């Protein structure tokens, strides 16, 4: 079983939901990435998504766009990224998901990239511009090596949700809002409806995580109450990283993580 699947099984047994945290590797620098990961683990995050920057992040809002630019300017390269992952792996067994865009994997070759990532300690992939229509080679390369986490949107129709769920492993990523990452905040009724719909369609065969614009403990609470198996928080962490000095980073990330995680534990 993959680390991601094990994690969801473990949480299920404890009647807990998952808190998934996203950070951009190399933003604002590598030390910050290591400190942030330590804070996330300490604060009780269940899964960490590590962003690898792409020059043209068309599904991302200003916060992640800026983080991508800074990370690239800092010289974040694939091998450097993998060595950071290895370093993280020495400290923790937490499931690690790599989030980037299709061209980064395609350019190296899906198989080669996925094997190298797996050897470094990556457990799964999220590619926001990879549609199921174009995913044959990608899925074949990931099989038995890593989970392929596909996204669905509130406007995805039932028959398509079923198909996407079949192509996905680890969890299914429900995009909460019409928009890019981190822009719209506040809870929309259509999102709560979508969570219920998707849960009904997937019948518990795969966990459903909700992300894009999730930023406060209250957001987490409401999405969990609506039936989400996981929530994904990204831009809010990047904003915190941006304004926190390095020597306080680990502890403030841990504190914020704890406040979010608390909402995923049913009392």
């Amino acid at each position, binding site marked *: 079983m993959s680390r991601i699947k094990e994690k969801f099984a473990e949480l299920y047994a404890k009647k807990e939901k998952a808190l998934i945290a996203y950070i951009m590797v190399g933003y604002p620098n590598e030390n910050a990435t290591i400190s942030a990961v330590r804070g996330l683990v300490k604060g009780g995050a269940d899964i960490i998504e590590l962003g690898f920057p792409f020059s043209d992040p*068309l*599904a991302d809002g200003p916060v992640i766009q800026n983080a991508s*630019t800074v990370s*690239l300017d800092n010289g974040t*390269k694939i091998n450097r990224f993998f060595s950071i992952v290895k370093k993280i792996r020495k400290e923790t067994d937490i499931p690690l998901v790599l989030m980037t865009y299709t*061209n980064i994997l395609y350019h190296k070759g899906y198989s080669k990239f996925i094997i190298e990532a797996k050897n470094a300690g990556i457990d799964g992939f999220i590619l926001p*511009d990879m*549609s199921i229509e174009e995913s044959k080679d990608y899925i074949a390369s990931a099989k038995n090596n890593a989970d392929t986490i596909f996204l669905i949107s509130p406007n995805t129709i039932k028959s398509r949700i079923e198909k996407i769920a079949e192509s996905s492993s680890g969890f299914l990523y429900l*995009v909460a809002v019409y928009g*890019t990452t981190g822009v719209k905040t506040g809870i929309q009724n259509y999102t709560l409806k979508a969570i219920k719909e998707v849960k009904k369609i997937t019948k518990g065969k795969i966990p459903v995580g909700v992300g894009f614009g999730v930023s406060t403990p209250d957001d987490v609470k409401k999405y969990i109450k609506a039936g989400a198996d996981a929530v994904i928080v990204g831009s809010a962490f990047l904003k915190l990283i941006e304004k926190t000095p390095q020597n306080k980073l680990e502890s403030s990330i841990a504190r914020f993580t704890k406040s979010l995680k608390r909402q995923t534990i049913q009392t």
Partner: protein
Amino acid sequence: MKYPKDGKFGDFGGKYIPETLVPAIEELEENYLKFKDDKNFKKELDYYLKQYAGRPTPLYYAKNLSEKCGGAKIYLKREDLLHGGAHKINNTLGQALLAKKMNKKRIIAETGAGQHGVATAMACAVLGMKSEVYMGYKDTIRQKLNVYRMNMLGAKVHPVKSGSKTLKDAINEAIRDWITNVESTYYLLGSAVGPHPYPVMVRDFQSVIGEEIKVQMKKLSNKTPDIVIACVGGGSNAIGTFYPLLDTNTEIIGVEAAGKGLKSKYHSATLSAGSKGVLHGMMTYLLQDDEGQITETHSISAGLDYPGVGPEHSYLKDTKRVKYHSATDAEVIDAFLMLTRTEGIIPALESSHAIAEAMKVAKKSKKSESIVVTLSGRGDKDVEEVQRYLSKHVKN
């Protein structure tokens, strides 16, 4: 490739898009398929193309230029005479009419040189729709005149300050807007790029260029042209010129922007110097570094300053049906001045790439041969840029 169902030209094309856009793309394809052969739709589009935009455009024999080059006869397909000053209106009228049939109230577009933005603003004004145009900040400066024109035509221009601040970033921003306002908004893409069905749809709307060339050449010389040449940015005027001629014996040449030279980093010659990859929803040739990051491009012409290219061109390159060459900024300026002075026609800098190639090819060709060059736009917008270039590069 008549209508590739999955949007594939060999390996190229496809739909690499965020899931939120899938319903919008499917709705677009459904409606495009419904209307493209619809009699009333065709009639309406035809009306606007003729009465509003000024079709058919002349096929002009450039006698002075031909004689100067001393070889083949050079004919110019005068898309520069269209309303708005470029071929872009062929596509914007088609798509804006389609958007209207789809009951979309809000139109967004990207633009490089500003010609597509202007053509979008015009089509939306005449059809009574609101438009918003994303334009790289760098392009808003070097094509300032077109920003004024868009504003006057009632379009809202959003300068894009992310990334390289040119066309590719304007497309990113337009896609982000579309993801955010997917239900209400129609994305009127300006070249034969992007996810399926855009490359096919834009090609079809631009194919009026090649269809007319066929008829006009037949009338003039009772045959198809020996050679056709068009410039390639995203590739819409080129594919519109080439597509109707693919199954003839005509030699076909696309011309990319070689900027300061293919050996420098400062060019936009995607097909000549790029490699396969995924950007803006399509698999195609791209200019990228050894890790798949898209690199910044350069061209003296904003409309060719793009690190990707339409997927059908990638296919036509690999199958060798079309040859792709390039012209440097310096050659382009020479061609610009040459056409201006010999024929009294000021060409767009984009189109001047095709002229530069035609001048090279004509010299090597026989007097009995005919070359048709698509003059995709007029150069009023570029006069300032050319002045800047000349004052920097030419010492007296």
